[in-house]
């Protein structure tokens, strides 16, 4: 084991309910798929160590809930993110169309310093399903969404199956690589701190304690 401190990378996974975020994370972290995952409430926390370009990194992943009602929670989980994964379901067109609002929501709540070039990545999941079930003329729609400079979703895209473990590893290696870049960028501006939580938390506490002086 190296005495050097591992680089912590914080990753947020977003996307509509049921697109398979939890299944993806289970496949990536625990190498398994099950139909027994329950709906995510709030967000689930996972960790995974990876070696990227000879560097050991530790991913801290928040697998968030897709339901709209939980979106106000975002701020508790998005803060300090180094990369954001936007997921859709290749059988569900609405989940594809919602990608840009997930992105906007993330930028509003995470308050990242570089919204213009913050690393996002898009994952289209469930490619194992029958062609007939997929979104009609999916490739065309995807091109529209990702090439549209105004829509602003010009990001790397991976098509995966959490069920059959297709492309999951590759996608998240890219996530890690992009997160690492972002972290190094951010790290330059705050290299004195050994983690990035204290700041935020203290502000939070002051607010909370203001209620009662006893």
């Amino acid at each position, binding site marked *: 084991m190296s005495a050097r401190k591992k680089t912590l990378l914080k990753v947020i996974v977003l996307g509509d309910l049921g697109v398979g975020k939890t299944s993806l994370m289970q496949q990536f972290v625990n190498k398994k798929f099950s139909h027994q995952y329950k*709906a995510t409430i709030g967000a689930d926390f996972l960790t995974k160590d990876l070696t990227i370009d000879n560097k050991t990194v530790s991913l*801290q992943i928040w697998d968030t809930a897709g339901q709209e009602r939980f979106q106000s929670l975002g701020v*508790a989980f998005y803060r300090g993110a180094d990369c954001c994964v936007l997921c859709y379901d290749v059988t569900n067109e609405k989940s594809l169309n919602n990608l840009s609002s997930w992105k906007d929501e993330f930028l509003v709540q995470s308050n990242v310093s570089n919204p213009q070039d913050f690393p996002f990545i898009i994952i289209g999941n469930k490619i194992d399903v029958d062609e007939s079930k997929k979104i009609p003329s999916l490739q065309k729609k995807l091109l529209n969404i990702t090439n549209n400079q105004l829509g602003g979703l010009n990001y790397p895209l991976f098509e995966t199956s959490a069920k059959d473990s297709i492309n999951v590893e590759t996608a998240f290696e890219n996530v890690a690589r992009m997160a690492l870049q972002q972290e190094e960028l951010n790290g330059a501006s705050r290299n004195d701190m050994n983690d990035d939580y204290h700041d935020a938390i203290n502000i939070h506490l002051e607010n909370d304690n203001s209620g009662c002086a006893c």
Partner: protein
Amino acid sequence: MAPKRRPEMSQVSSNGHNEFVFGEKGGRGKNLLSFLKNLSLTGPLLNSHKNDNSEEINRNINSSIYGEMTYGYTSPDTGGLILPKAAASLKGKRLSLLSFFPYGLSKIDTTDGSGTQSNNGGSSRLASPLFRHATNSMSALEASLRPSSRKSGFTDLDDDWDAQIDDVDPEVAPVVLKPVARSSTNDMIDLLHPDLMAFAPSLRISVERKPSQRHPSRDRALMDSHDRQAEQEVRFLNQMLTKLTKFQNILLKNDGTIDLHELRKLSWNGVPAELRASVWQLLVGYLPANKSRQASNLMRKRSEYAEGLKNVSTQILFKDDNVISSTANSSAASVPGGRDSNNRDNSVNKDKALYHQIKIDVKRTNPSMPLYSLAATQQSLKKILYLWAVRHPASGYVQGINDLCTPFYQIFLGNYIWQLQRKAAHKTGAPDDSPLFIPGILDDNDTQEQLILEDPKLMTYTAENFDPSRISDRVTAIIEADTYWCLARLLENITDNYINEQPGIHRQVSDLRNLILKIDPELLQHFEAEGIEFIQFLFRWMNCLLMREVSVGLIIRMWDTYLSETPLGFNLFHVYVCAAFLIKFSAELKEKDFQDILLFLQNPPTANWTEKDIEVMLSEAFIWQSLYVNKGAHLR
């Protein structure tokens, strides 16, 4: 009104232990005493009511069972002998033994075995700061309970106590304690919670028996393990019977109105499985306490549910996986006027999205229990959740409500099976216990019901091994309606948890955080140092009422207590329960860093928990609520 600081009841922290101080001279005993009063009502050998006929019966049962046990002992096989004799001793009582244990007596052995097994683990977990402290202060309390010193014990009380508790009437102080030294936490629990001792491996009897009834020559220390097991079985049976008798006395009281206050007091400590469906319906306010109104009320509510469903299901059919919008296209086309049809289209789309969401979630509901992967179950859940969501547009369907639906569903399904079992047993001459049935469920003209009644395996069925597709549409609708209304009542208690922004949950989280600040400030400090935010793990605890952290069987036990709280405990009391839950792991958590804390709290080690662990947690929560209930200002 500025809240006064009361140093004598705030936590004192020293050496990493946080302890409650119940007053220097044991003055806090008043609170603990009423705590005892509350907890001990279902204790097997306690006389909580003088001149109560039920107590007479209980004593008879007790003495005949204990009689068999203590004096009738002839062989290591005693365990096998007790059961029939216990049954015999019940002849002429309202219910036969079989009616208490419709699933057969072998089940009791299993329960007993597992209870015994986990007891060690259970008691070692009792060493929470609160209980460690409470053990210390118990000697003072004990002194105050002993008849000779009871009076002075009470005059010592600090009347300035401002927690909301019932005044204790010394006349009904229920516990007669053996004046022995108590030091272990196990003893502490024995004292606080006689029920918890059901499976205790030690044979300590905490309640005085008449010395003359003791077998003079038998030395307990010589009893071999068979004897111990037998005695545990007897105790377990004894407790269940006593408990049941108490519940029956309340439920079958002749004056026509069930005393809900008494029922709550009793149910707080757990409701017998067979009576749970009706007791829950009473506690939640669905089944009227006035018996003459029960049948008609239920009929009205059940048809209201059916009507409601009829209105929504013209747009959504629940039959299969595909969303079939039976009238959407045709009606939109037939309604003249673009705007109108647009509106209709929109609302149909919204309904479709809602249905889609519920469909996905129902598939993911409690997947580890086979019942919930059955098509019939899933269809019922979809209907219930969908109707609730469209009828409560301010919140609509929120993930987690699917979880909250399941305890009601499986209890009511189980109740139907139980009623059928009782009915089948009646044919063979068992006493009729139909007065305990929820009205309006059984029907001789229901052909599917007759088929189940003739099933030779009927007696082996429970909600966990029965396929609800065998049930008639009539009964399915009843179970759904009852589930729907009880769920609706529960959700009324926590409306703010599911509306936009979920302010109820945020309030609960901040209350809990402030509670931890009082109870275990070091844990809070540690969390802050590690960058943990309470919302990160508490959100789910609140949104799903710990249903993701604790098995459904134990959740059902928790709900006995929640439903006995007034107002219902899903809102305020739940915060104290979560505090107790968190603090249970305090020592471990303080050793962990950010990552490990979150991973731990996301998957807390409750797999081996038994009802006893839950009951200890509920008891701790009760104490904290008593301490802080009037201190909203402190919590905010």
